[in-house]
């Protein structure tokens, strides 16, 4: 672990410097240079296979990178470090999966409580109170005792968000959080995310919900073939995209 001093408030929350990622001969991420500022909401969009999910998964090191540097809150995520250091770093990065990945053998409440108790060593009563507060925040306090299979997709994803928030991360990553949902359940999940953004959470979100991007994002990153081709304010991106590939992507979306 490099001994980076705690970043001052102005430093970005997430910073990619010349990040490259390869799967064999396939170049999944090419020279990524980008920053997510504190409190900023970034929406990553682009055609499928463009590297969006790979990009977001490198931030908490679910994917390794081939070269470059990735700083989270001033700490080098991909530096050589002890397992316990990586665990601690990951506990500070909330991650929400497309497929929810709730623990099916645990109730909603225990899904949220598990990691604060086992990872952070929080006292059980304290963890329970906080978990109930978080379930209340995502509107599911009455489902605390339900098991994942008894919940709808939208409810499961909201529990998953509460579970990630239970570790009190300074930033949240969302990997296509609504792509596995029935259309009528997308709204409830986006509403929770909108609330998080309003409360000043730093968010990086891979999504195809362009309405959400337009409304909530501070910036949009457009990716194709492993490159970030364009970063722009949502208004500029949707009304006047610069890159020809982005223009084509947006016009395909409209049809």
């Amino acid at each position, binding site marked *: 672990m490099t001994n980076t001093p705690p970043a001052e408030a102005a430093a970005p929350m997430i910073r990619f410097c010349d990040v490259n990622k390869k799967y064999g001969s396939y170049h999944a991420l090419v020279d990524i240079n980008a920053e997510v500022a504190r409190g900023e909401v970034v929406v990553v969009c682009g055609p499928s296979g463009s590297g969006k999910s790979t990009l977001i998964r490198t931030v*908490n090191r*679910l994917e390794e990178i081939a070269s470059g540097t990735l700083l989270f809150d001033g700490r080098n995520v991909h530096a050589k470090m002890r*397992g*316990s250091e990586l*665990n*601690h770093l*990951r*506990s*500070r*990065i909330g*991650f929400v*999966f497309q*497929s929810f*990945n*709730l*623990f*099916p*053998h645990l109730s909603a409440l225990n899904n949220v409580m*598990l*990691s604060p108790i*086992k*990872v*952070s060593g929080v006292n059980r009563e304290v963890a329970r109170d906080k978990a109930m507060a978080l379930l209340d925040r995502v509107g599911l306090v009455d489902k605390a005792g339900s*098991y*994942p*299979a*008894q919940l709808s997709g939208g409810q499961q994803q909201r529990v*998953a968000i509460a*579970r*990630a928030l239970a*570790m009190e991360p300074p930033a949240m990553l969302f990997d296509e959080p609504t792509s596995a949902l029935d259309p009528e359940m997308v709204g409830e999940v986006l509403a929770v995310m909108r609330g998080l953004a309003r409360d000043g959470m730093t968010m990086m979100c891979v999504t195809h919900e362009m309405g959400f991007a337009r409304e909530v994002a501070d910036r949009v990153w457009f990716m194709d073939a492993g490159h970030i081709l364009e970063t722009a304010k949502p208004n500029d991106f949707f009304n006047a995209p610069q890159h020809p590939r982005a223009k084509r992507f947006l016009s395909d979306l409209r049809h």
Partner: protein
Amino acid sequence: MLSDIILIVRDNWLLLLIGQYPNGPLGGFAATLILSVLSIVLAFPLSVLIALARLSGSPFLFWPSTALVYIARGVPLLMLILWVYFMVPLLIGANVPGFVTMLVTLVLYEGAFLSEVVRAGIVALGRGQMEAARALGNSYMGAMIYVILPQALYNMMPSILSQFVSTIKETTLGYVINVPELTFAANQINNQLLTKPFQVFAILAIIYYAVCWSLTKAAVMLEQRIARKRAGQPGTALPVDLTPQALTAEP
């Protein structure tokens, strides 16, 4: 026929129950039960460790555990028992009681078999559960203990149970190295009576069936209790036939 059986049991119940004890080693049904329980209690945690070793990236854990699994799979249990029985005393220069030989062999053999069941259960979960646990900051072992194993072991309960039942039945092989367990006692009785082998071995069959059936029943009840707790959860209802017949069938 039935009266013969009752008479044999009446005359020999103590031998069937505890063997020659206290004039000789504890034997009969008591020895079978102790051997079975110890084998299962030791083989089960061993199987989880072997499965974790096989799944770990470390070659120092992978190769020895894989070798054990392949040997257990490729060699008949009876041959393994005879090997341990004749070779281990030569190697360590001391006599090993038949009971200990049998216990160690069964634990290694069943542990290896069971480990493949456990491993299959872990692999079948897919990587999403492990990723979710790790993303929250759990260590690999923490994720295994609190997230992966509770699901994997529950899902594999029918196979694990069937391996437990196999273990009970395999204690009969102790007979060939003179472990005085239930089969050994029954054979002693048969040697005295000479003319009633069918009746004697019918008693043996009934006792083994009752033990294996009870274990199966207990496991089914445990499983239903867990299923009730997670009521309404599709995908965890076991599609496998849980009748004693299906579970006591030889693998």
